[in-house]
């Protein structure tokens, strides 16, 4: 293989984290998910991508089973605020997933007005961080790097 044909930035960070990638229950967009999955995998993390329109039960069940290091909810259809609140309440309401770190980002409302309120509500509902639209995905790498302790488990994802 010539050096130029090598995919760039294939590296294994220490530690490599397991990410559960999800979106709002009403959000059908997937390019953001495809892109984030590629990006996180290129940086050595393993990703379970739930795809579009993820109902809360599916999210909670999958998180219980796979015990991810981080749940990332990416939403761009403008309902991310309402969908995100429900997702957070569901995850935080279940004993097994109560403490799993979770973040949300994307286009969370249909207009920029009220962004601060939305962010406060989402944090209040249990998200550890709310990324404004346009935040580069490297923010996730920082968040993953800051996760304390060893990986939560190695159960097959």
């Amino acid at each position, binding site marked *: 293989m*010539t*050096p*130029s044909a090598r995919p*760039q930035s294939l590296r294994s960070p220490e530690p490599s984290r397991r990410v559960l990638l999800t979106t709002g*229950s009403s959000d059908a967009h997937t390019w953001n998910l495809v*892109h984030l999955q*590629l990006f996180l995998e290129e940086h050595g993390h393993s990703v379970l991508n739930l795809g579009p*329109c993820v109902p809360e039960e599916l999210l909670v069940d999958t998180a219980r089973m796979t015990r991810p290091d981080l749940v990332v909810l990416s939403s761009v259809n403008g309902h991310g605020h*309402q969908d995100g609140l429900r997702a957070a309440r569901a995850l935080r309401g279940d004993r097994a997933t109560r403490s799993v770190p979770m973040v949300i980002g994307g286009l969370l409302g249909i207009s920029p007005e009220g962004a601060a309120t939305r962010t406060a509500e989402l944090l209040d509902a249990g998200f550890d961080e709310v990324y404004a639209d346009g935040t580069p995905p490297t923010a996730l790498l920082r968040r993953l790097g800051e996760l304390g302790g060893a990986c939560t488990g190695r159960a097959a994802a």
Partner: protein
Amino acid sequence: MYRAGSGLTTTVPPAAQPPLPPGDLGTFVRESAEAGALVVQPRMGMVGAEDMAAGVAAVAGLPLRTVATLTIDSYTRVGDHAAATAALRAGLPLNGFPLVSHGPKTTARVAAAAGRGTPVQVRHGSADPMAIFRTMTAAGLAASEGGPVSYCLPYGRTPLAESVAAWRDSVQFLTEESRAHGRRAHLESFGGCLLGQLCPPSLLVAVSVLECLFFVANGATSVSLSYAQQTHPAQDTGALTALRMLADEFLPPAVDRHIVLYTYMGVYPKTVPGARLLLRRSAELAVRGGARRLIVKTETEAHRIPTVAENLTALRIAADAAGAAHGARAASGAPTADAEEVLAEARTLITAVLGLSDDLGTALLKAFDRGLLDVPYCLHPDNRGAARSTVAPDGRLQWTDLGALPLLTTSRRTIPMTSRQLAGMLGRVAREHDLAAGTNPPPEPASAPRPAPEPQPAEPLRIAFVGMGPRGLSVLERLAARCAEEPPARPVEVFAVDPYEAGAGRIWRTDQSPRFLMNTPAQEVTMFSGPADAGPHRPGAGPSLGEWWADDDPAAAEPDGYAPRAVYGRYLTYVMRCVEESLPSSLTVHRIPARVICADRSREEDGPDGGVHRLRLDRGEVLTVDRVLIATGHPDNEPDEQQGTWAEFARENSTPARPVRYVAGGTANEMPLADIPAGASVGILGMGLTFYDILAELTLGRGGTFTEGGDGLLYLPSGKEPRIMAGSRGGVPLLTRGANQKSPEHRYQARLFTAERMAALRAEGAPLDFERSVLPWLLAEVNLVLLATRIRRVHGPDAAAEFTERAVESAADDPRLLEGLAAGYRIDPRPLTGLAALARPFQGRRFGSPAEFHKVLTEWLRADLAEARQGNAEGPLKAAADVLRDVRQTVRSVVDFGGLTPASHRWFLAEFGPLAAMVSTGPPPVRSEQFLALLAAGILEPVGPGARFEADPVEGRFAVESEQVENSWVPLDVVVDARQPSTDLAADRDPLIRGLMVDGRIRTFTNAPAAAEGGERSEGAEVFATGGLDCTESPFHPVRADGSVDTSTHVLGIPSEHTRWFTQVGSGRPGPWGSFTKDADAIAAALLAAARPGGAR
């Protein structure tokens, strides 16, 4: 032909239909098409009934052929009517019209706002549309859209089997219920969109046809087949042609059908002009491709849900552009290659699916299960996800991995796509249109008829880049950036001809030893003409080498340091790929891994400019092009007389027991250094940058290591090293580069040696005597910085600034007044008397033994290292030396294109050039530390100043001796010539250059007094034959032997050395453009000027 409905539906349409009520979508579109108008339609959905009705009324009220739309919100789409109703009651915002929650009465009232003539269509995106269809039929509506595949796979997680079953029931319900009420249901397949982006057209077309067949099988008699605008106009036109042909081929004749085009469904341009441009192009595409209805996007698409007014504007623009395009519509001839390809692939897909079952629903399920249909990048669990696609360099969508798709294809490689590439492709159309519209905004919508757009000229402008190293790449980068900003009138096709990897070329090959280093800090190197921004890396916006390196290889990268040449090579190939991956549709790039061996014109009989250029390649073909860029880089010269003699001598005297070798000059990478036996005596001729590469390869490359000793580095030999004798004119290595203390964008602003002053000098007195008229100013500038830095260290920045101002004032008349002025500051006021004082410290000095010389040399280099450690801003000497780099362009402005007298030009190249290089192009400190360690370890033995290499016929070996060091004579087994071969076209071995010289198509630059130019030279008048390629000023056309100019050829970089000075620069610098980027841009601009209508043929 597939017979729709076979064995499936029980409902057969009656032979004679009652007349359809007004507002039938199929009839409306057909009548509009007959009237020559494209039907335009928004996507529009408001939560409130009053707002929605107002929107419908406004669309229907436009003086255009419109269809009104009710677009449903996401909750209703996924069947969560409870959430939609709750939001509606609570007054929460929704992203569409909650039709089911509003109920049939309200919906009917909203739809009535369209009046009698304008059809109303319900758009929803639901995998199970039954509830929506029930409500809309109850409200009297009969037109909707979607499909069992297109509204399932891309839009959620409903199992495909459920979607197929739900759609079968829903379509049957809609068609029967509509018929029962005297209406005709219309169903539009959304199959032409799928994920909106990156799906090759053949699959879009196939799914669209299959879904319409599914509608027909379930009772529909009026359908529309969709296609979403993609990335390449010609491919899109071909896809629309194929879609029309396949609809006619597969749909029963009695079924009413038309093609509907969607304005681009991917990432949308962010700017208003960009969005409008893309919209206009979609309308033109609709007309060109025979689509009868267009669903538009608005200019706020990228930002938020549009208002009614924004939707109306979009409809007006689309109708305006379509009207203009109708006038210009070309007569449709035979299907294009694009159409043929889409047609063949889509037909194969459709036929493969139809063969799976008589029930089309079952066939679709089997097809996805087996991967015979497979949507690239679709995450749905029922999609196989093995097929992959890409935007090809020419802008077309193509498959990169077929998975199990039943397609035959040639030369499609599986390449993993990175997230950055994906982002680049997804944003490509948006970026292209934002840029294009930024420089050339599309017209405002108006009612006045517009002149037809100029027909696309079929003939592209073809350009050969002979050599695709950094110089070729720099022009390509600017060419691509310019094409993206403003599409050229003609398409442009570039042939990047280089036998080595495109981008890196020969010198920066990626497979060379990691021990060969660059001599410019990585963060001062870039090949992008602008800094990276939030978008993907692309021409005009990308990382410097340092930034890229840190990202590419964070463990090994030292962005503040000096990158291995191989790393720069990888960066260059990355830039090349970035260019290729983000090409605007107007530009195509072909890599031609070959060498050009000769060139001529196709109509020689018409004179030197007759016909196109014909380039014969070493692999056999002939390339015909309109323009040529010669960027062949470092020369490969015939050995000169002495080199020839030495090579001969080595051959004659070498024996297996005691090999004798002469290694000719070139790059260290190409030298057979591995053949040099351990313990052999090796003389290295020349102590410049190539010397360091050789030194590293013969020590580090043989297993030696450097460790930190108490007093600098220590070398631990491996035992496999040869003895290394190094000699050069000055006898010392290059001066160490000062530790960097400046930002990559920093540029020193000259105060005395200014571009204006030099321009004035040249205007008054060219040709000039460099030593007498120019050098004093250059030295004054160097000394100004030297003295000001000394003053700053002692008295602070204010005093230094004061000194500088006073010095600039008083030195304006006489640059030699600096010393007196500095004397008042209680510092060492002595300026440099010349560069030789720095670069030739041992001139005229004699040494009693090699040991004495080594001792003195060690002290000298340690002192130089100490200066270097003080930095290139804080250290007086290194700050002063840095001036030489910063004013290089001003030197060029005086010297290039015959600015000096012949005698002075000769002196400049022979004397000043090497001295300036000694002082200002040196290696990083680590290299000097390694030099000292190797000297201390006895591996490296510098011979001394004025080293003379010779062939010793008595011994049968080579030998070297310094005339200034007693007892320095030493025999050598190997001589390695580490001097850079200088540009000398007469000695160039490149067959292309030779042929062009012989044919008189190029000539070397001879510096001769103006009066004697051309004709016979007056007796005794000195001329200086430089050996470099004679060319004009920017944009650098070669001058022929007869003095005429070849305006269809450009030359850049090292072949034009001597005509121009210091062309051995293989990179641009971040920040304001230097000559590297300016020269490239000037050539790109000239090439694009040729792409204008009437531009050269």
